[in-house]
């Protein structure tokens, strides 16, 4: 017997397995980033002095990155919508754009990090920089993870369109949920670190 409800939804829950699975995973991620935000709060409250974000971080670059991620969220959901409308070519274009935008985000972040290192500012410099690098670093790792997953679905994974199109559509929806979460984390990270 095959594991049921991988594509079809179960009647009483209205869900297919991977959708419940990804929301559970995202809940655990909320707690993971939550722990770091909680650390940020405790460290800031306990510090004698704490710099404002604008003293150390480049707000225009951060704003651009915010716009980049938001746009990538739109293209991601459009990729899913394209599959729902059975338009495979559009799906690949939107998903490809999502991946490109994610890479742009990383490049900009790379510039920011490089600038910090050049000025001798490292995680060990102060608890402000410690938590800045950790929060953005962990977020960055999640962006990389998303790029890898999306690249797989853009490339070899997209072959599933021929054999099991509904299942691929579900997988893109699930990948999209993950990607939107990454976007939401940044939506909170950006003001916390850059603007306050």
């Amino acid at each position, binding site marked *: 017997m095959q594991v049921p409800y991988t594509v079809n939804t179960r009647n009483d829950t209205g869900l297919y397995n991977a959708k*419940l699975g990804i929301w559970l995973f995202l*809940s655990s991620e909320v707690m993971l980033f939550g722990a770091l935000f909680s*650390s940020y709060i*405790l*460290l800031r409250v*306990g510090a004698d002095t704490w710099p404002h974000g604008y003293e150390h971080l480049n707000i225009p670059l951060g704003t651009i990155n915010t716009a980049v991620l938001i746009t990538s969220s739109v293209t991601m959901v459009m990729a899913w919508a394209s599959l729902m409308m059975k338009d495979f070519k559009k799906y690949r274009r939107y998903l490809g754009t999502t991946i490109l935008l994610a890479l742009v985000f990383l490049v900009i972040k790379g510039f920011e990090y490089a600038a910090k290192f050049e000025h001798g500012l*490292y995680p060990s410099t102060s*608890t402000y920089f410690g938590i800045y690098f950790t929060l953005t670093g962990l977020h960055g790792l999640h962006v990389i993870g998303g790029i890898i997953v999306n690249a797989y679905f853009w490339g070899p994974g997209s072959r599933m369109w021929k054999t099991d199109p509904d299942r691929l559509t579900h997988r893109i929806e699930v990948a999209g949920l993950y990607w939107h979460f990454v976007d939401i984390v940044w939506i909170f990270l950006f003001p916390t670190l850059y603007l306050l």
Partner: protein
Amino acid sequence: MIGVQYGITALLFLLFGFSLMILMRWQLAYPGQPIPFIGSWFGDANAPGGIMLPEFYNQLGAMHGTIMVFLGVVPLAVGAFGNYVVPLQIGAPDMAFPKLNMMSYWSYFLGGVTMLSSFFVPGGAANSGWTSYAPLATIATTGQTFWLCGMVFLITSSLLGSINFIVTIVQLRAKGLTFMRLPFFVWAQLVTSFLLLLAFPPLEAASVLQLMDRLLGTSFFLPSGLVVAGQQLHVSGGGTPILWQHLFWFLAHPEVYVLILPAMGIVAEIIANNTRKPLWGYKSMVYSTIFLGFMSFIVWAHHMFMTGMGTVISAFFQTTTMIISIPSVIILTALLLSLYGGSIRFTTPMLFATAFLPMFGIGGLTGLPLGLAPSDIHLHDTYYVIGHFHYVVAPGTLFALFAGVYYWFPKVTGRRMNDILGRIHFFGSFIFINGIFMPMFIEGLAGVSRRLYDGGQQYAHAQGVLHWNVFMSISAFCLFFFQFFFIVNFFWSLWKGKKVNSDNPWEATTLEWDTPTPPPHGNFIKPLEVFRGPYEYSVPGKAKDYVPQTEPEEV
């Protein structure tokens, strides 16, 4: 079968963790005496001339706790019993995400290898307690880095596993199996999985932060002006060790409910089966378990009463802690009342399951003075604490897990374990496990601190109770001896155990007994439908004294 893999690995880790404690108990009874027979195995860095160094004692202590909790009990209770029994009890062909399940197991395995290998690095294994408090853990030897990496693997394994369990239980129940018809064991695993899912990530974050403090020179947990061995530490400071404590205990408190809930689940199944009557108060038990799971997230700072905590926060956590004892009592009472009026069959699993009840009772009751700050002032970090939590986990959870092995062994292998060896194992273990842990309350009340490598020898206030150390150690050695009855029984029965003549040798009602022995790929040979609750024993008017869940109603 992943459940079996988890089971064998976990049992091996339990034995190893137990062995570490046997070494410790030698040192505690006979401080400074060379370890007999095997003293030369540990090398000069740990035990020159066979005499245990304090540094080695600390390694044993930290790793005993870590291994028993994270590599032994939870993988056995959740990874082994959960993976094997839950899909069967809900009529599912497999777990929802089989490949993810495999990744969970190998992540656990990698975590275990990392932890074990830490014994062989310079400075030995982690030695800052299983609680790894900053700043001690931050400046500790290399083994601590291994501990942190090992924890990351183990936490990942748990997270993937918990997602699997929740989706499986929610989505893959057989037709007719509503939530209130689930065996209590499945409810216990469901709530346990939510605890693992939501409580572990903060410790994962904290482990990364501590790794950064150790390897990148950050100061998340290091306050300003810290002086080590007379030298000011060259870090930025500005952090706080209290942050580590919050993040650690945010997990570690729900973790103790992870340790106990599956055990309660196993005991419930065995009691219903061996009293031939339904569980008393099934609904109360289910709601109590859910409430317990919820409350477990907001009691954690009762492990931090001694951090200079103010009265308002202390009152908050004392209150939540007292409240959380209520569902535990309800569950224990329901299990006790389930015995009343039953036709009790004292099979070997039933012996362990019944013994669980008063043992957990002692463990739970001794927790109360720890959960109240005024008494905790005297009792914190003493042997009283060790006695309390061991009562819950050792004659508590471990007994329940043994019960589970004896109970489900015929399902997995088609053979029974030997009854005589089982009873010897039980009586020997029961006597000597109490011999180890009961005197700890006495020592604790006298003020003997925990984690002292010489068992309190140097303290005047300990002198009157020190003789208990010898008593406890001898009990420990005897307990260790009686485990051989289990080990021999286990392996002998695999090949030579009495074969069962039916798929349902215990005459049980739940779905796992409705499948061939051992279950084939896909678990069930025909699609199932469930018609009734899980404990329809001794139903008036029926021919047999049990009605399986899947038996169709008579027309």
